[in-house]
């Protein structure tokens, strides 16, 4: 019990430090006078503090430290994270810090600047999301995702904007001077589902992958629509009159933004893949290229006024398979770890700043407006999802059930993107009211919807995600079925999904892989990779029991000569075991962050290992040698 409080006390100590430092920044500290101007008045000091010298990086580090300690504290506290999602807790900490700063200094605390958010905080999160995106599932559902992202967002924006305008005209809320365009602008920034919020909440509720990818993919791809609509309405507001041509330009702009982001991402992704081909002699900096190229793609896309999120996601998806093949295992691990770490820090900072920025002087409260905005957001989202799903279910093989639809509608969380956009705009009259409304909507969706979605998922018995890797049999049989279906489609003359997938695979193998992957790295089929992955994980399960004790055993085994072509089952078993030891040697570092996509639970791997060893022991009496070998190798760990 005492341990639980330590991180919190440390956190609070850091708060106070922050306050002290920032408050001392306000009062001018004695600057030592430059030596050239005075002679004689200058006395030598034994010990002096020069805060201005380090002020900027010091404060940044303190904020990041605060965020990380807060996160650490939650995970120590046991029961709370099960009920309240992390994002809510972080916002609450932010609120607390903001309140304290306000109370001490009587001025508004620092606000999350839109520039810092869009340029520094958002890219790592989106890059992490794109790198770990389940590619196959995403492309299988791409049509539905685009359907929701494009049409759904348009529906929401127009619906919210028009209905708010109508209500304000009818109601007596003092907002009559706000024009329709202003409301449409507001609608465009509040209607968009936020990937950061969705990620952080859905990560904890573990719904089935299809549902997850639908909501998450939608939140990523609707950025293009949001960007275009936001900029469009802003420019309309600056222009004196809007003609039909301008609207048409807007539509073309949308296509340009989306496709432009896509191509920028593709370009940088392929470039990154090509560069990693040559990193064999400088393996240590290989991960750096990944981050640099991805960030470059984001910045280039933002510079060209395209959708930065689409660029960075496309870049990550494109380069992943080539990079993984080209780069050493350690570099792969580094890339994954760094991505997870940066995205984690970013996310934490975003939520804390959301909390801090809520404490403002500039709030303007208006009950009817805020409540109606909230209500309309929910209403239009629900209607939109229902209508769109009704249409799209006719074209899908796997219908989206009512339960899934409810989760999609309910999981439309708003987050920091809306917040930054509302701060960024200069065109809205009564900006304070809109800021307040945005904050309320964000807090409502994150707190209320975020907290209740988990019990609702359990209540509605939504299909949960499978927590284990597919077995090798499943992988092989599914591969066979894919080939079969592709063949049948060829017979029938139907260009279905499998046809395009096949065509892409052929193109990939013939041209892209030969160009982008190092010659000595053989591209391995997914069946082989899965098999190696499964065996490796089983070995890692053994590893964690007694790595040090094991190493002499490994070295013993390695001195055995490589076996010849197997003739009988027992020699095959011996080969299996030596091959497994080889894999073991390569993959020593285990990464076990719970948020990694390949959800590795130690229990599952240990159970399967035990099963395998048991079955090996029982099946063949002739494999006594192998069983004894296994026993020899496991006894060192037992002695620990």
């Amino acid at each position, binding site marked *: 019990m005492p341990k639980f409080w330590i991180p919190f006390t440390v956190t609070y100590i850091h708060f106070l430090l922050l306050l002290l430092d920032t408050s001392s920044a306000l009062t001018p500290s004695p600057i030592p006078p430059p030596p050239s101007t005075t002679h004689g008045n200058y006395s030598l000091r034994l010990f002096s503090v020069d805060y201005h010298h380090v002020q900027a990086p010091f404060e940044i580090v303190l904020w990041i430290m605060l965020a990380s300690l807060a996160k650490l504290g939650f995970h120590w506290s046991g029961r709370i994270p099960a009920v309240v999602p992390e994002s809510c807790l972080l916002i609450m900490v932010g609120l607390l810090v903001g309140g304290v700063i306000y109370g001490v200094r009587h001025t508004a605390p620092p606000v999350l600047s839109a520039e810092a958010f869009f340029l520094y905080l958002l890219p790592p999160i989106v890059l992490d999301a794109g790198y770990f995106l389940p590619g196959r599932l995403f492309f299988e559902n791409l049509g539905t995702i685009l359907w929701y992202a494009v049409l759904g967002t348009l529906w929401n924006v127009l619906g919210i904007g028009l209905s708010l305008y109508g209500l304000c005209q009818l109601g007596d809320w003092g907002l009559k001077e706000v024009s329709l365009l202003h409301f449409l602008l507001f609608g465009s920034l509040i209607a968009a589902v936020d990937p950061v919020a969705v990620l952080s909440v859905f990560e904890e509720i573990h719904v089935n992958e299809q549902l997850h990818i639908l909501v998450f993919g939608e939140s990523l791809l609707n950025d293009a629509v949001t960007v275009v609509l936001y900029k469009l309405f802003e420019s309309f507001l600056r222009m004196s009159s809007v003609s039909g041509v301008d609207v048409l330009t807007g539509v073309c702009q949308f296509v340009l933004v989306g496709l432009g982001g896509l191509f920028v991402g593709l370009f940088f992704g392929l470039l990154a893949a090509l560069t990693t081909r040559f990193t064999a002699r400088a393996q240590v900096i290989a991960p750096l290229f990944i981050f640099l190229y991805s960030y470059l793609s984001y910045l280039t896309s933002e510079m060209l006024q395209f959708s930065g999120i689409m660029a960075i996601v496309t870049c990550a998806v494109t380069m992943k398979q080539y990079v993984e093949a080209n780069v050493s295992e350690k570099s792969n691990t580094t890339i994954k770890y760094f991505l997870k770490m940066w995205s984690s820090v970013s996310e934490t900072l975003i939520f804390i700043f959301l909390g801090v920025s809520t404490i403002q002087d500039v709030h303007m409260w208006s009950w009817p407006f805020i409540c109606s905005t909230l209500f309309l957001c929910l209403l239009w989202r629900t209607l939109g999802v229902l209508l769109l799903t009704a249409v799209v279910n006719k074209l899908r093989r796997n219908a989206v059930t009512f339960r899934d639809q409810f989760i999609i509608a309910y999981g439309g969380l708003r987050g920091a993107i809306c917040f930054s956009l509302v701060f960024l705009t200069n065109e809205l009259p009564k900006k304070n009211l809109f800021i307040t409304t945005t904050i309320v909507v964000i807090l409502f969706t994150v707190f209320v919807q975020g907290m209740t979605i988990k019990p609702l998922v359990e209540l509605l018995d939504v299909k949960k995600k499978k927590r284990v890797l597919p077995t090798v049999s499943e992988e092989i049989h599914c591969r066979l*079925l894919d080939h079969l279906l592709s063949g049948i489609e060829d017979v029938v003359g139907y260009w279905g999904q499998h046809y395009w997938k096949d065509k892409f695979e052929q193109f990939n193998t013939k041209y892209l892989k030969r160009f982008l992957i190092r010659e000595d790295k053989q*591209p391995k089929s997914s069946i082989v990779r899965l098999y190696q992955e499964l065996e490796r994980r089983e070995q890692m399960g053994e590893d964690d029991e007694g790595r040090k004790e094991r190493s002499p055993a490994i070295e013993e085994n390695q001195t055995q000569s490589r076996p010849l072509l197997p003739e009988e089952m027992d020699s095959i078993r011996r080969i299996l075991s030596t091959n497994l030891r080889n894999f073991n040697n390569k993959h020593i570092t285990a990464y076990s962050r719970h948020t990694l996509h390949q959800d590795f639970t130690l229990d599952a791997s240990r159970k399967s290992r035990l099963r395998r060893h048991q079955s090996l022991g029982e099946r063949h009496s002739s494999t006594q040698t192998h069983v004894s070998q296994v026993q020899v190798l496991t006894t060192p760990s037992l002695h620990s």
Partner: protein
Amino acid sequence: MPECKCCSKVYFKMVKCVLLEQLQHFVNQLTHSVASAHLVRLYDRYQALDKDNKGYLCPQDFGAIKELAMNPICDRIIGAFFTSGQEILDFPSFVRILAHFRPVDKNRPKEPNSPDPINSRSNKLKFAFQLYDQDKDGKISRHELLQVLRSMLEKQVTEEQLESIADRTIQEADLDRDDAISFEEFRKSLDKVNIDHKMSIRFLR
């Protein structure tokens, strides 16, 4: 059978109308409803594949499909159409095989005494099982599994790795420890996979 091409087209059109009505009834028995529009399309495709206008299909016609020839398991797929070593595939049999790939009709009420429709999950799985089990002994032996693996993985793997993978596959599925996978074991190993989703073509709904 008429000799010149234009006459044979007219002939086939006449035959088509008669044939389609009979076929409708036949296919309805198999799958409890197929839109006649689909049948017409299938028949057009059947005719397009039959390059010499023989009135039936032979394995060479299938081999002539370019994309199919690049499929690693194309021989097995062709073999699945020409069951029991025949060299002639008429239209009803063609449709019968393809009917396996209709999506499962969830709304149809289940009649207790009628046999499973041809596109039921278990019949789909039986079809897939046949692709492995070439000697039709009801089991997938290690040798058969290796052959399939070899054709699917081709040059990417060493013989050793292939063997290990085959071993692991059998070990995962084989419950009665006879070193082969029976249909029941096959079905059980694919329990968690959504077969209806994987083995359906929307074309045939």
